[in-house]
């Protein structure tokens, strides 16, 4: 061998070293293979058993769902502790014995327990099976004292949703339901697993992400009977955020009591920003019943009830707008130049058009009417004339411009569009050309028109605030558990009413007179001495034009009574609340809906004043 730097080294020199290297490599791989053999073949049974009956378990720490408050921080929804009776199938040894003992202590049958556990045990049998949800404290005490003879039986403490004032705002707040297989697969709920509750309806659904929080994890070691021996690792859950709704607790309570025994809906809004101050729908349902699990019978009765208690009529109920629609017709007539402030129409109590007689609600007629008087007294003949001159399509343009005929776009799901017909629509949908006579019905809100109480509230609020159509908002703020602001709402303008300020003043004058003039349709029902109110009544005919044609004697079917509307705002010159009231089969718009709206306005404005003066008093101290 040469010394010094080798330029041309003998390859054999390397080759010997490489052979040694290869030998070392093979040796180490043999050691690895031996280790594999030891783990998988010699100890394979042992580890297989450990893996299928792993004594280390990852348990989830449930995240507390966020609380729900009203706009003033009044707590509406919280969580209460609950205890679920669970069984871990692998730890039941044997299943028959435990089921037998358990049946002696509870009202469950041994067979039931066995079949429940057998059908729900997962592939490996150590995911707990819930046997009975929400057991009483007494039963829990009994079970705990017998725990030594009940291997595999555990009691999971959890939190259950509690609707404190249920059924207050049941439709708005909504309820929870068990997550479905499909939702689990949809990956929309990454932190949920089977048996978890998710928002099903109302704000609970709309704000699911904000409210639900993120569960934590703990690693625990369990003994042979499935009891936790010690907690090895813990990652705490992140509780859900708290939701502050825009509704006012007292006003909401008022709305519900006003609707008690009736079928219908009330929406109250802040005209300055679109905040929903109250949203009630009647009849109501029990939210807590959903949390506890409805029986088949309860569910069927809710589903088949003709008054549709599960439906939020404020956003899902579609009704003919009746005379409240005259606000739209007036807008169209003034803006299109078909009529002006001084146009008068003589009302003899009817209008003959073609070979049909179109009646005014007032048999003997209103006499000479201008626009303001026509709105005030809701003269049909005046608006027949307007409709005749405008035609359906021009009216539809103003209705759509005011947000009718389409969803308001608020966060609550299942909102309905309503319907604003046009001549094209009728040709395409029904296949019959538009008849000139229908222009007359449309102008007074009868015919194909359908609106939701919420849409009418938005329209009324827009009239009140001189033209801004706001997207209705129910979320005041979302705050973290520690009180930090996560999300704050800001008013969202969806558009402007297609009307000039001048025309709007005429309409507003009419709305003011309707309540405050002796001839006004709502004078006797909605006028307040304390606060000036403006508004419009509506009586939606459901069959024929004259109900007394049908009704003979006292046996009058309630289903044929007209729906009652009232939309309005107060105080007239500086509006702070807009209200839309619909009472199904309430008969007279003025008599059935008017007083309800008035109560709502007075309640809100009076409590508001009290709060204002209380604040002042605070300031003086």
């Amino acid at each position, binding site marked *: 061998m040469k010394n010094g730097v080798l330029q041309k080294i003998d390859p054999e020199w*390397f080759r010997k070293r490489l052979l040694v290297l290869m030998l070392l490599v093979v040796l180490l791989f043999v050691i690895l293979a031996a280790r594999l053999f030891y783990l*998988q073949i010699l100890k394979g049974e042992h580890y297989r058993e450990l893996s299928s009956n792993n004594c280390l378990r990852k348990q989830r720490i449930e995240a507390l769902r966020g609380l729900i408050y009203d706009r003033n921080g009044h707590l509406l929804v919280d969580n209460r502790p609950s205890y679920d009776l669970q069984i871990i199938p692998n730890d039941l040894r044997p299943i028959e014995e435990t089921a037998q003992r358990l049946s002696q202590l509870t009202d469950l049958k041994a067979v039931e327990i066995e079949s429940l556990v057998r059908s729900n045990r997962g592939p490996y049998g150590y995911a707990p099976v819930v046997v009975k949800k929400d057991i009483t404290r007494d039963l829990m005490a009994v079970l705990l004292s017998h725990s030594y003879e009940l291997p595999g039986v555990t009691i999971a403490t959890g939190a259950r949703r509690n609707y404190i004032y249920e059924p207050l705002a049941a439709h708005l707040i909504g309820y929870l339901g068990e997550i479905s297989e499909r939702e689990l*697969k949809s*990956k929309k709920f990454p932190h949920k697993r089977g048996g978890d509750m998710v928002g099903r309806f109302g704000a609970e659904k709309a704000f699911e992400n904000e409210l639900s929080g993120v569960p934590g994890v703990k690693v625990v070691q369990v003994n042979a009977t499935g009891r936790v021996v010690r907690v090895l690792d813990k990652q705490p859950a992140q509780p859900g955020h708290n939701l502050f709704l825009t509704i006012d607790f007292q006003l909401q309570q008022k709305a519900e009591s006003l609707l008690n025994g009736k079928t219908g809906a009330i929406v109250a809004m802040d005209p300055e920003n679109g905040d929903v101050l109250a949203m009630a729908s009647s009849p109501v349902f029990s939210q807590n019943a959903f949390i506890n699990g409805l029986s088949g019978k309860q569910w069927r009765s809710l589903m088949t009830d003709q008054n549709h208690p599960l439906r939020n009529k404020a956003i899902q109920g579609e009704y003919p707008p009746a005379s409240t629609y005259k606000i739209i017709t007036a807008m169209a007539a003034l803006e299109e130049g078909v009529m002006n402030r001084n146009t008068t129409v003589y009302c003899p109590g009817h209008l003959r058009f073609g070979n049909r007689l179109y009646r005014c609600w007032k048999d003997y007629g209103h006499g000479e009417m201008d626009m303001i008087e026509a709105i005030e007294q809701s003269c049909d003949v005046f608006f027949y004339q307007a409709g005749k001159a405008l035609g359906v399509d021009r009216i539809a343009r103003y209705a759509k411009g005011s947000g009718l005929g389409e969803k308001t776009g608020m966060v609550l799901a299942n909102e309905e569009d309503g319907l604003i017909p046009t001549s094209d629509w009728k040709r395409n949908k029904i296949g019959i050309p538009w008849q000139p006579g229908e222009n007359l019905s449309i102008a007074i809100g009868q015919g194909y028109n359908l609106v939701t109480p919420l849409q009418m509230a938005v329209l009324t609020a827009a009239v009140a605030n001189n033209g801004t159509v706001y997207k209705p908002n129910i979320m005041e703020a979302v705050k973290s558990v520690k009180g930090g602001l996560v999300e704050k709402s800001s008013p969202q303008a969806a558009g402007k009413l297609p009307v000039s300020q001048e025309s709007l003043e005429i309409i507003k004058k009419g709305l003011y007179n309707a309540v405050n003039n002796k001839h006004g349709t709502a004078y006797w029902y909605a006028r307040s001495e304390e606060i000036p109110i403006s508004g419009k009544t509506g009586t939606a005919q459901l069959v024929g034009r004259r109900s007394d044609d049908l009704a003979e004697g006292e046996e009058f079917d309630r289903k044929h009574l007209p729906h009652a509307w009232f939309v309005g705002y107060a105080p007239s010159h500086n509006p702070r609340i807009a209200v839309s009231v619909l009472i199904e089969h309430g008969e007279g718009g003025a008599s059935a809906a008017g007083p309800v709206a008035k109560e709502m306005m007075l309640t809100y404005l009076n409590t508001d004043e009290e709060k204002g003066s209380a604040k002042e008093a605070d300031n003086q101290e």
Partner: protein
Amino acid sequence: MFDRRLIQYFDWWLLALTLILGTIGILLIYSAVNAGEQNPLADLYIRQAIWFASGLALMVISFLFSYKRLDRWIPLIYGGCLLLLALVLVPEAGKTIGGSTRWLSMGPVTLQPSEPVKLAVILFLARYYARRLKSDGLVFRDLVPPLFIAGIPFLLITIQPDLGTAGIIALVATSMTIFVKIERRTFYSLAVLVLIALPVGWYMLEDYQRMRIMMLFFPNTDALGAGYHILQSKIAVGSGMLYGKGYLEGTQNILSFLPEQHTDFIFSVIAEEFGFVGSIFMLILYLLLISFGLNIAYVCRDPFGTILAVGITSMIFWQCVINVGMVMGVMPVVGMPMPLLSYGGSALVTVLLGMGLLMNISMRRFTGS
């Protein structure tokens, strides 16, 4: 200009093995992130496939030119890699995941410079040793430059901290040095020095790293932290038994007992789902890969090529042994990807570049300079 012999001598077997292992890797990552409940990482296997494809392209580039022409560029490559490595330590540039700052964000991709640094060190050492070969072996003086070549990146990676990658650099550098022969007396004195240095090194480790080494010997004392990984991994491997539980059926995998099963613990997925048979099959594939690499060194007539091939092969070898050993509970849990199998773009591309260089050496074994 283009020599037909290049194709004649091309190592098709090495290419085939690389493709097979990379594909198995993607399938295993799919299993690791998709078994059981929905996983936010479910699409990782697609990313791995994209990395694999781009790595293959780079691999082709790395054997198109003769590796001998690299000689001049090696210091530049080494310097560039060190620069990236240093950049990780700049607070604005480095990206921290799980307490370690190992990554650079570059637009849509995140680069882990410590991976290509391994190759740069191997290249630089091969270049140096090829010029210093002595049949009596290297003496102290000869070993000072390699100490810096490997030492600088070693320290930079240790402070990230990434014990696994730093350890690999040390192991590969040591392997290459011993391969080219150290003079006898120098070797013994170095051995004594290392024995003295070990306790000092122990003292310098982070608590969690010491814990993990301790766990190796006493896995049941703390089942929550370091011991949890080892115990769960052993359960996964052992429960695979002879034939495994089947693809996508691993219960340890499905129930997420194992963290990082798509990266460092990917071998546990094979062991659990394909059992002893599958695991031995995988070990044989890797043994083949390593013997192909050593064979390339064996038939190469050029010292630089031989030493380079040994360096690359030893990188693959050590990563395999440490990773599999760690999964089976005979090595401490350190960040150590399984070559070609584990999820991770930088590591995959680095290994593919290494494979490209091996092919490069192999196809030019009979050509002159």
